[in-house]
């Protein structure tokens, strides 16, 4: 036998002086790191993923979790991770599973872009004193407005009055350009969904249902939920489509472009089974392609079918992963009846993705936004469709930069989960989430307080909204539409010419 265990990633230590043997850590850790043995807590560090539940919950602050880094001979090519992966795969013969976003050391362009502010020649605007408008409409817009002139009698005099002839298609009205991304019920707990739904309703924005259908407990918030139609078509029927505020067809996901999804049977509880409309305990498998979409014209048909099913009352979005050809695909989507295109960058999160996809497939969101926006302008259709950027948005600065590069609004996923308690330990696919977020186990789910969770997510959106207003004011802009695609207000720092060209921005100093 070849011993195949790898050293634990983390080292858990209990300060035995502080520990009072209350057993809280044993209770809180859903991963089985702790076991109480008579007057001692035994630690299994190899099970720890640094989710910090125990650290936070220990009443005596006695627990420390460190990275266990000392035991591999360092090598620039054969990193510890590479060696570990090979050992694991040679043991199992399987695909490596992973979660959250791309973990490779690619450049984060958001962090190489700086913002502008007004000095002297135009005054910054103080959002505390002056109106600062973030309202954003997501959906189809006409190229131009047409008016007709109708004669009306006012006080006995005939005058011609301009009447609007153009009908505007239904749009989503966002009070802030920040929405919550599609994360399915099944992958996430009902409490996590409820908390986010309450938050978006309060903030005047929207969340995605994910591909797992809509649990009946979420019906009261349905007017703030975008229902997703993915390749598995879980939970999709006409009531589902009509219930939400908009519909989103998911073609691909930034974390795993080109492949489908897999919810293990253990997570398909009775409630999940009812919501998804599949038998309890069976694996929920989303195929890689939609089996009724083998090219762009099929997608255009599905867009139209969904619109017909909902009497053309619901905007239909199409979500694609950011891949090399994203600009051309987005243009194809823009010329269908779709109302918005969602671009999911390669840093987009996930509950479960093969590691090789998560880390190697797709392109950076920043480049994808710039390419799509530019292409749609060249085709003269940019203003007729909305662009929603998602995948790795971490702060209000990222939101601001994404919009200045060309997006209308953003989706946040991981950031909203962090607001709910997630510590990005990256083991969502195990169903053991100690924070009650990515799990269906009732005893874990109940740890997540819906009201408190809602307050935190709402706080996060409000805080970013405030920061956006401050940034806009400093840039001398008082309406978000004047920021959209306004790349003049961005500068690159430390980027080469090709990167600057792809982003469509100048380098600082110019």
């Amino acid at each position, binding site marked *: 036998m070849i011993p195949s265990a790898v050293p634990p990633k983390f080292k858990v230590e209990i300060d035995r002086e502080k520990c009072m043997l209350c057993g809280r850590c044993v209770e809180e850790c859903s991963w089985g790191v702790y076991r109480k043995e008579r007057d001692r807590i035994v630690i299994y560090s190899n099970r720890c993923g640094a989710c910090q539940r125990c650290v936070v919950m220990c009443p005596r602050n006695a627990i420390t979790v460190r990275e266990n880094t000392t035991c591999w001979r360092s090598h620039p090519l054969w990193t510890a991770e590479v060696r570990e992966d090979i050992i694991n795969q040679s043991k199992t013969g399987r695909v490596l599973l992973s979660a959250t976003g791309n973990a490779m050391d690619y450049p984060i362009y958001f962090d190489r872009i700086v913002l502008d502010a007004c000095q002297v020649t135009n005054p910054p605007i103080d959002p505390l004193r002056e109106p600062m*408008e973030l309202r954003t409409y997501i959906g189809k817009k006409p190229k131009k407005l047409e008016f007709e002139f109708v004669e009306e009698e006012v006080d006995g005099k005939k005058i011609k009055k301009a009447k609007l002839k153009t009908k505007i298609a239904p749009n989503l009205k966002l009070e802030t350009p920040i929405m919550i991304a599609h994360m399915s019920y099944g992958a996430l707990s009902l409490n996590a969904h409820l908390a986010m739904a309450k938050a978006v309703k309060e903030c005047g924005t929207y969340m995605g249902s994910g591909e797992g259908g809509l649990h009946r407990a979420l019906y009261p918030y349905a007017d703030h939920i975008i229902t997703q139609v993915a390749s598995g078509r879980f939970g999709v029927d006409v009531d589902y489509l009509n219930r939400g505020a908009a519909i989103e067809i998911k073609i691909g996901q930034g974390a795993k472009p080109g492949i489908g999804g897999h919810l293990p049977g253990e997570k398909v509880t009775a409630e999940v089974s009812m919501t998804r409309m599949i038998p309890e305990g069976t694996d929920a498998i989303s195929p890689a392609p939609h089996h009724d979409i083998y090219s762009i014209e099929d997608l255009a048909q599905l867009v139209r079918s969904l619109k017909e099913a909902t009497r053309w009352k619901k905007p239909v979005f199409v979500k694609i992963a950011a891949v090399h050809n994203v600009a051309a695909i987005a243009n194809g989507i823009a010329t269908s009846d779709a109302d918005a295109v969602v671009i999911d960058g390669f840093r987009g999160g996930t509950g479960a993705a093969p590691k090789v996809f998560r880390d190697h497939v797709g392109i950076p969101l920043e480049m994808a936004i710039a390419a799509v926006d530019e292409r749609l302008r060249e085709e003269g259709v940019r*203003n007729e469709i909305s662009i929603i950027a998602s995948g790795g948005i971490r702060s209000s600065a990222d939101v601001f930069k994404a919009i200045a590069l060309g997006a209308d609004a953003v989706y946040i996923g991981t950031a909203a989960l962090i607001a709910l308690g997630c510590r990005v330990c990256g083991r969502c696919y195990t169903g053991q989430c100690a924070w009650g977020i990515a799990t269906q186990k009732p005893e874990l789910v109940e740890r997540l307080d819906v009201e408190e969770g809602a307050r935190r997510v709402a706080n996060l959106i409000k805080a970013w909204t405030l920061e956006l207003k401050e940034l806009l004011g400093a840039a001398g802009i008082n309406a978000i539409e004047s920021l959209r695609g306004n790349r003049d*207000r961005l500068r690159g720092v430390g980027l080469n010419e090709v990167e600057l060209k792809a982003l469509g921005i100048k380098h600082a100093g110019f």
Partner: protein
Amino acid sequence: MCGIIGFISRKKRMIRGDKIAIALDSLKERGNGQGSGYVGYGIYPDYKDCYALHVFLKNTPTYHKIIDRVKSILGMYGVVVKDEEIPVKEGVLKKEFIPWRFFYHFHDSYRDIENDLMVNIVMEINDKVDGAFVFSSGKNLGVFKATGWPKEVAEFYRLEEYEGYMWLGHARYPTNTRGWWGGAHPFNILNWSVVHNGEITSYGTNKRYVESFGYKCRMFTDTEVVAYIFDLLIRKHRLPVEYALSAIAPKFWDEIDRMEEEERKIHEAIRMTYGPAALNGPFAIVVGTHEGMVFMNGEIEENNTLIGLTDRVKLRPLVAAEKDDLVFVSSEEAAIRRICPELDKVEMPDAGTPIIVRLE
């Protein structure tokens, strides 16, 4: 900070160009001598049906070659009736450019699309002909501008020799780009002339928006885009003027939400459709035109019009005044009083509220 002055005679009385220069001179401390300019409407009665193209030619010994290239583009669609150097007084300014004018009309077959064609021609010359910049392209009007103080520029172009019924003037204090002849105001396309005080913080958005409709911004300054937006919204999209102005300086959502349903829907549609055309940042602009325009009452008026507008929070000054048939707009009342000491009425328009003056 820049100085703006404009006036119009509603009775179409002809007024000599030195009047506007005197008024603008009193605003000279709002500029810094790096650009002054004027536009007069009705100044070419003998060629009133021709497009009068004013073009800067780079002052090199071979500038005649540039003229030939401009002529070859113009020759494709019509006839140059006359071309000559714009008469100037030598020795007043350093002549970086030679201002040239072409009186031009299209072949009959292009009559229906002549305005669109003229826009394309201007874009093509500015984009492709090295050393040539078209800075005026309307009928029976002309822009005169250069790097210099208001008085110098007026003297250089011998403004006292022209008579017009509407004049706009501008003294520049460049903030975002260097001062050069093409960067001075007014900016003109067809019959739209724009003078502007401010800095457009939404320039990147506006520029990319008009570019997707075929306009090309080549003057290295933000005001150019304003002229194109007016051309796009009012001439091409035929928006009623008041609504076009509302697209440029949009009503706040708070105001829109309080409107009656029909009006609310219109303003909501305007902001949704024309968001990228909205001008942000501090501005006061005055726009002159005499193209036929669609007004709120729906009638086509073949009349000259003067429009004054500030940004939505009024970060730049604008004052309007009247005396008999004359209406004035200016950055400062002092400039108006300089040429017309007794006024019937003086008013400050509200933020974002346009003043529109039409001929009788």
